[in-house]
């Protein structure tokens, strides 16, 4: 099965028809959930990052900040992935061949890998090496901000 056939099969699925044939406010609703999820996710990441760099709450234990921020991060991740998947499923051919979409997905895979392979480990330490903490926060935020920028480009390219 080629990629084109897979995309056609997705576009012809019952769920794709249900979304694309529905009122255009359903699509708007998915966009709103996607943005809200992204805000939750990024806010959690920024909070942990600021704490890691000792810019906020430096007298509070990392574990206290991390636990609630991670919950926020997971809620945001679930909301963005679910709404994003539904948007993609409705019109896969519209998205798949767009450079901005490809870039966003590439950055997303990188961000998730970075998040679980490095960021989590650094944030799990009470006093990580400052250079390593700064580098991890810097790269993570650049990649996640890049996802936001690439995401906004999708509608314009």
């Amino acid at each position, binding site marked *: 099965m080629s990629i084109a056939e897979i995309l056609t099969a997705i576009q012809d699925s019952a769920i794709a028809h249900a979304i694309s044939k529905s009122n*255009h*406010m359903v*699509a*708007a609703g998915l*966009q*709103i959930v996607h*943005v*809200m999820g*992204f*805000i*939750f*996710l*990024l*806010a*959690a990441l*920024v*909070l942990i990052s*600021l704490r890691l760099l000792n810019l*906020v*709450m430096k007298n*509070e234990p990392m574990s*206290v*900040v991390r636990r*609630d*921020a991670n*919950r*926020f991060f997971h809620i945001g991740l679930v909301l963005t992935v679910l709404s994003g998947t539904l948007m993609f499923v409705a019109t896969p051919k519209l998205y798949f061949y767009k450079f901005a979409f490809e870039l966003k997905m590439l950055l997303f895979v990188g961000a998730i890998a970075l998040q679980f392979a490095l960021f989590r480990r650094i944030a799990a330490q009470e006093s990580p090496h400052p250079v390593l903490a700064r580098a991890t926060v810097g790269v993570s935020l650049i990649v996640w*901000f890049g996802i*936001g*920028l*690439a*995401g*906004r*480009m999708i*509608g*314009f*390219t």
Partner: protein
Amino acid sequence: MSLVALAEHVEQWPLAIAIAESRYAFPLIEGAHLIGLSVAVGLLFITDLRLTGVVLKRIPAMHVLHQLRPWVLGGFAMIFITGGLLFLAEASMLVTSAVFAWKLLFIVLAGINAAYFEFVVAKRPVAQDDQAVLPAGMKFAALASLTLWTLVIVCGRLIPYLS
């Protein structure tokens, strides 16, 4: 001069034309608007959820508020600058958009709520105590903030759909 005529005049400014005609400027500024929103409103949501006693309960509420405030304000500066630039490029469409008017109204109400919180609620002696459960006035202001900023985001995202 009517509002629409004024908006059409604004759209002729060289900066407005440059943003509207560039292939990348508008989406990139929108992206920066979204990032600013995530920092400002995102951290504000965390502060509001602390005030309502949902998250970070082991950290004193006023401490969370004071620590995050400069970052929230910095994010807001970014939102207002990028929002202003986006407005220039689409001024005549936006001034006739009902959903944009709702967005502005909710921003004003959120501002009034923040000022009321800052200068009235947070000044009360009881608010200065480091307690897990906060006075009802604080919770109410935090819930109002959560609701109003959510409505601002919803209206903002609806602009291309309803204008």
